[in-house]
């Protein structure tokens, strides 16, 4: 096992674990669109850095661009959280507004950058489609730490998260700190997406946040079992995707992970359909 493979493995397993713990709330709150919104905000954040790099060439560096991604994702997550918490705009509309605004900003910035400096800006392709090349040990360690923080927070807030997902208004009315859970979930999503855009790209990040939770909820109706299935399927998808990439270099890691997850979903879906049909046939 090479050092690069070890770093890649550590990063994708960390990402898969963090995604799994957020996936069930994302599915139950119908926030499937949220990964798109926040990850594309990273594209807008990078766009701001690309524009600044035209004026200040000193910041034209991948680290500066990644800082733009981090800030863009966090600010957008908080913006979506505030807008969707108020009843005047629903979550989907709030996410849609941020998504198109940040995408437009990113594409304009890229176009101005190419026109001015005659080459593609740093991280452009990686941000859209993910990139595992040149993954450093520091990045893998950061991914591991962020994943641990997301996982521990999600576990500590389990009962509040269940109450919030079932009915946010009643949770708030019973003193269950629903507002806190709402904002914490958004920040955890942003942190997870910050790791994820490097691996899967902003285009496919949603799949990692949605598919494992869907698999868990169609296979069981017990919270702990759903969480266990979700974590297992997410990690299986991540390792499977990485191994496919090792075997066939032409297949990028992000899309490979998504395909393995979708394969698991289809298997789970048709298995439950078959089982429920048999149960119906057996019942008098």
């Amino acid at each position, binding site marked *: 096992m090479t050092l690069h493979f070890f770093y890649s493995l550590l990063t994708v397993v960390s990402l898969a674990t963090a995604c799994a713990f957020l996936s069930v709330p994302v599915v139950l709150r119908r926030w499937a669109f949220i990964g798109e919104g926040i990850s594309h905000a990273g594209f807008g954040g990078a766009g701001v850095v690309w524009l600044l790099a035209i004026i200040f060439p000193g910041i034209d560096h991948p680290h500066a661009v990644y800082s733009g991604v981090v800030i863009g994702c966090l600010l957008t997550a908080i913006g979506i959280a505030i807008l969707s918490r108020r009843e005047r705009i629903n979550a989907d509309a709030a996410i849609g507004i941020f998504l198109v605004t940040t995408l437009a900003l990113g594409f304009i910035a890229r176009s101005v950058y190419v026109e001015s400096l005659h080459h593609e800006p740093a991280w452009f392709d990686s941000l859209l489609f993910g990139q595992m090349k040149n993954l450093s040990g520091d990045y893998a360690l950061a991914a591991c730490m962020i994943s641990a923080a997301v996982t521990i927070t999600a576990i500590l807030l389990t009962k509040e998260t*269940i109450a919030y997902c079932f009915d946010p208004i009643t949770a708030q009315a019973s003193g269950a700190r629903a507002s806190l859970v709402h904002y914490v979930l958004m920040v955890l999503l942003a942190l997870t997406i910050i790791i994820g855009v490097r691996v899967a790209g902003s285009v496919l990040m949603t799949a990692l946040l949605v598919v494992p939770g869907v698999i868990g909820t169609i296979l069981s109706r017990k*919270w702990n079992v759903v969480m266990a299935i979700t974590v297992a399927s997410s990690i299986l998808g991540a390792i499977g995707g990485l191994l496919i990439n090792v075997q066939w270099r032409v297949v990028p890691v992000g899309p490979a992970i998504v395909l393995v997850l979708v394969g698991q979903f289809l298997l789970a879906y048709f298995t439950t359909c078959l089982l429920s049909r048999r149960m119906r046939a057996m019942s008098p």
Partner: protein
Amino acid sequence: MNTLVDISNLDFSYPSQRTLTLRHIDLRIEQGRVLGLIGPNGSGKTTLIKLLLGLLEPSNGSIRIDNHSPRDAVKRGNIIGYLPQNPPLPVNFPINVKQLVRLGLTGKTGLFRSASKGDLAFADSLLPRIGIEGLAETPVGDLSGGQLQRVLIARALAPRPKLLLLDEPTTGLDSSGQKMFIESLQQLRQELGLTVVFVSHDLRAVSAMSDRIACLNATLHYHDTPDHLPAELVYEMFSCDLEAMGIKGAVNECTCDEQHDSGTGASPVHSRLEPPAHGRGAHATEGG
């Protein structure tokens, strides 16, 4: 008797509206009483509930619940229990009935803590009391509307609240479901010494279990026992007379519109119902 809820000189308007949704509301509810809050659609019933829950802030006036502001009362987790008007339909939500009832303890328990054994035992003891002990392990997605309503009542009661707010609790229940619901609620109320605010535009359900009725239509028009509810006020508010709504003995299944069209002859006279000349709402105290 102690006053549990004290609403004083309350005005409220939504930011997008120029007119007051609620104006000059003065209302006191004594401990252990059941107040039926009635009024037509858009009269401000649910807004008043949201104010009691601290989800909205009054434009003027004050609300005290057990000597706390609504927000403080909600934060404590064991003063107010709440049943929402449109509870979610939990299809595929991965918890069972017992877990859903225990969710009612979340606010009382607080962050990063587990519920005490006593609280868990009390929450579990609510299942047989409301007749759903056999459903403890049933996924919540498998419940009928009436069963879910009972489970949500149990969730609201799990933290042993002093005040139970029920927002249109009988909506969607058939007549036998309503009867069962009211009977079990009456029993629980007596056992637990609850104070209940029962919001509905179903006068039959309200009058069946309330000690007092408050008629709300932006301001408070009436506050007294159900027996003294003036027919004229009901006619004015609901375009329907008391007999048509099954109160005062007569049971008639016709709808309000039918009754109105047939010309019951009730005139919208409301001399004792008007707010006083200076424009203030009735200052109502639970004691009468």
